């Protein structure tokens, strides 16, 4: 990056910090290798046309209207913006610094009612660093504290502007894994009982409370409905679970062991409207047919291959490939804390392509691997075909790469979110530039900024 461009980026970042919105550009990227993100293989000498913040067309032979800005994509690759499924972006500064870490509320009186949206910090450096890595959207969760219900997650974009949340309360996140047993009083048995009771209470509450179904946030509807005395949930938590039990809000459910996955799928017998998404599913490959039959999508970490816990005995990097082969819709995700950074999504996808060349392993094709970090997670999040894919009408989230985006040597050179070009500077690039030469010059390093 040239010094001029770096300064421009820094100015852009500074200006957005002052809440001056950047304008969407109309542009056409030409002569590039374009990957649509829909599972197909990349298209050479292709064009991506973005107008009014939306994708107009992408592919070979797309005509470029006169007068529109042309970006030469020669030698470059173009993809949709990447979607980091299940992250905690914007909820922490330094993982180990509890003072400002908002990922977990283990002493809160609430659980299912917790809503991460108001806490998400659009100026978090991790959002900026992830944006530099080509991530443009994410589904953000909090972690379970003292309840198997962690609360409600949000969809965000990673634009350098004050509006990060695009959909608050997009889903509820709960756990029914090994950890859930410990949280719920000491066993999986108790976790299952707590879970069923909570949904039963929510169903009961909805029936008594006459909650208007058009309400965006059922928690805020004061019904004055009488409740039975033997309730475990607060009114606020019970109200939050109404959309879950009625299937209007997705339920992200963390499970790992094959048996726990079967038990999770069986919940639909008692609560048929549940709109389930499995998170984790380390042993999903063992029950892939069941998951596929239930039409439940999965968000999984691709490179888990150790029996880190007993619920992960059968872990293998082939998990995602095998589930995909069985017809399960699987996204790469679980970008929690600094241990699994969102900007690692491309290399994780690339590793699944590597598996296609390992005898006995099951990986993904290149196109499927890219889809697993673009269109598939966007679709699972509820965005349908409006994000994570370069289709006409989709959001103009576009990344231009200096090479194959899944390859370790590649990185984004330009990032657009809804047609708005994003700064690619962050605190790390500033430190890098300051210490290009370690020893100080005429003045201490503190004056170099």
């Amino acid at each position, binding site marked *: 990056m040239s010094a001029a461009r770096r300064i421009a980026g820094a100015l852009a970042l500074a200006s957005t910090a002052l809440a001056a919105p950047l304008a969407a550009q109309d542009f056409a990227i030409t002569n590039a290798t374009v990957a649509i993100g829909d599972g197909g293989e990349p298209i050479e000498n292709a064009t991506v046309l973005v107008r009014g913040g939306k994708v107009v067309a992408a592919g070979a032979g797309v005509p470029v209207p006169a007068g529109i800005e042309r970006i030469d994509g020669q030698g470059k690759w173009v993809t949709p913006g990447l979607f980091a499924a299940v992250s905690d972006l914007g909820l922490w500064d*330094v993982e180990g610094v509890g003072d400002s870490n908002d990922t977990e509320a283990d002493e809160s009186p609430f659980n299912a009612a917790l809503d991460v949206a108001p806490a998400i910090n659009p100026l978090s450096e991790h959002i900026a660093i992830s944006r530099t890595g080509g991530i443009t959207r994410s589904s953000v969760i909090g972690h379970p504290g003292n309840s198997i219900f962690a609360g409600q997650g949000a969809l965000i974009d990673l634009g350098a502007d004050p509006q990060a949340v695009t959909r608050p309360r997009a889903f509820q996140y709960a756990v029914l894994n090994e950890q859930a047993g410990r949280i719920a009083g000491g066993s999986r048995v108790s976790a299952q009982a707590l879970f069923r009771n909570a949904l039963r209470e929510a169903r009961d509450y909805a029936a008594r409370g006459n909650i208007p179904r058009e309400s965006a946030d059922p928690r805020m509807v004061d019904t004055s409905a009488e409740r039975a005395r033997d309730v475990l949930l607060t009114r606020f938590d019970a109200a939050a679970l109404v959309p879950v039990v009625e299937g209007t809000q997705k339920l992200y459910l963390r499970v790992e062991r094959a048996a726990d996955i079967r038990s999770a799928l069986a919940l639909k017998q008692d609560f048929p409207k549940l709109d389930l998404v499995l998170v984790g599913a380390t042993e999903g490959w063992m029950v892939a047919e069941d998951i596929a039959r239930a039409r439940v999508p999965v968000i999984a970490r691709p490179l888990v291959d150790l029996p880190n816990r007993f619920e992960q005995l059968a872990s293998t990097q082939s998990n995602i490939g095998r589930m995909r082969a069985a017809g399960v819709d699987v996204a790469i995700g679980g970008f929690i804390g600094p241990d699994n950074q969102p900007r690692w999504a491309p290399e994780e996808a690339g590793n699944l392509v590597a598996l296609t060349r390992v005898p006995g392993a099951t990986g993904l094709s290149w196109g499927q691997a890219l889809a697993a970090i673009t269109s598939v997670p966007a679709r699972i999040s509820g965005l349908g075909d409006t994000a994570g894919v370069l289709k006409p009408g989709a959001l103009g989230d576009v990344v231009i790469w200096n090479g194959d985006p899944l390859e370790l040597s590649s990185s984004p050179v330009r990032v657009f979110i809804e047609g708005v070009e994003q700064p690619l500077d962050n605190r790390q690039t500033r430190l*890098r530039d300051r210490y290009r030469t370690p020893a100080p010059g005429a003045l201490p390093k503190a004056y170099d900024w």
Partner: protein
Amino acid sequence: MMKRAGMARKAALGLSCLAALAGCAAGEGKPTGLASTPVADPYPSTYRAYPGAPTALVGATVYDGAGNRIDNGTVLFAQGRVVGVGGADLAIPAGYAQIDGAGKFVTPGVIDAHSHLGVYASPGVDANSDGNEATDPSTPEVWAEHSVWPQDPGFSRALANGGVTSLQILPGSANLMGGRAVSLKNVPSRTVQGMKFPGAPYSMKMACGENPKRVYGSQGQVPSTRMGNFAVNRQTWIEAQEYAAGDHEERDLGMETLEGVLSGDIQIQNHCYRADEMALVLDMAREFGYKVAAFHHATEAYKVADLLRENDVCAAIWADWYGFKMEAYDAIPENAALVANSGACVVIHSDDPNGIQRLNQAAAKAQAAGERMGIAIPDAEVVRWFTLNPATAMGIDDRTGSLAQGKMADVVLWNGDPLSVYSRPEKVWVDGALLYDANDPKRRPVSDFELGQPGAGDVK
């Protein structure tokens, strides 16, 4: 300079024998008549190389680990040793099995200078948590090898997916002085002695910064500050100097290790993140006359890369971990490239049972970060970051870490460029024995723990 000081001390003490090396007679050079005499090598390596066939890898791109690249190269090994490395014209002796490496790549076995496999084994349950003797801030008396569980399934993943043939198992970083590390060959064994790298020098783990002061400060004991960290360390080194100069009438396990450090027989592997603390540690090492082999994690190495070069200390680092605690807040992906650019030694380490499976990929990422800022580092040099350089930091570079005649035949045949995300090990040899073969499911180690469990013997 420091090395000379160490030698002088050793001579003064009459310790001419390298105590950590096998074959060094017990008590040699010591005063006689002690009630209890240290045995030089009380838990000796019983590792023996498994049989291998004389093998010729031909037609592959060879990175020798020492910074050289040979296109269409030939690598010969037999009897556990590298016999020759050269181009297509290198003559292949009779009786060698030829393996066509066209389109493939050959490197030395990958080496991890910072692993906790075996001491923090999978599954990560409390019963397997054996890496930190977190009951005292200074525990130079503990030895990691007494914690290593050879059945940790992580060893097999490191071999099959990472091509790792040697690794250094360190105690954790709760303590200022965490105890002795142990270097292993990545060959399954019933016992840790059966994995011990023959003749590898010992290292001692030290840690500065947040961990020790947090662990002990939270218990209301010293150290609770960084200055407390240094005070405890300096006091301990003073005691070690007195012990070394003393009559050795009473054995002291911790002091024996510290004496070994002061004499130069035992290396220091120092967990340290911040630039300012690394500079302080270098002064402490000078104050007491020992040498730091490598700063581990060293997320701010790029800020003092010149100091590291001047002091001949390696930075053993991740590619791009950051942000997990305050002292990792300034980590940047260009760390390795900036350190290399300053002429200091870069080691890509894992500290992680997953990361150890992709040290080659981490190095490639670090290379790319350098490239983006205009620092071009040749592929062959980058391969050195996860082969010869960690061997150097561990003191085993005269035996492994590069493909050179007479060295251990620790070799990886990759199915593509090891710096590409799309490549994996196809075959891995340790001392010339084929211990992983992607094309042969039975050449996939399965630990006792996994045997008979769901997924045992699966590709992982």
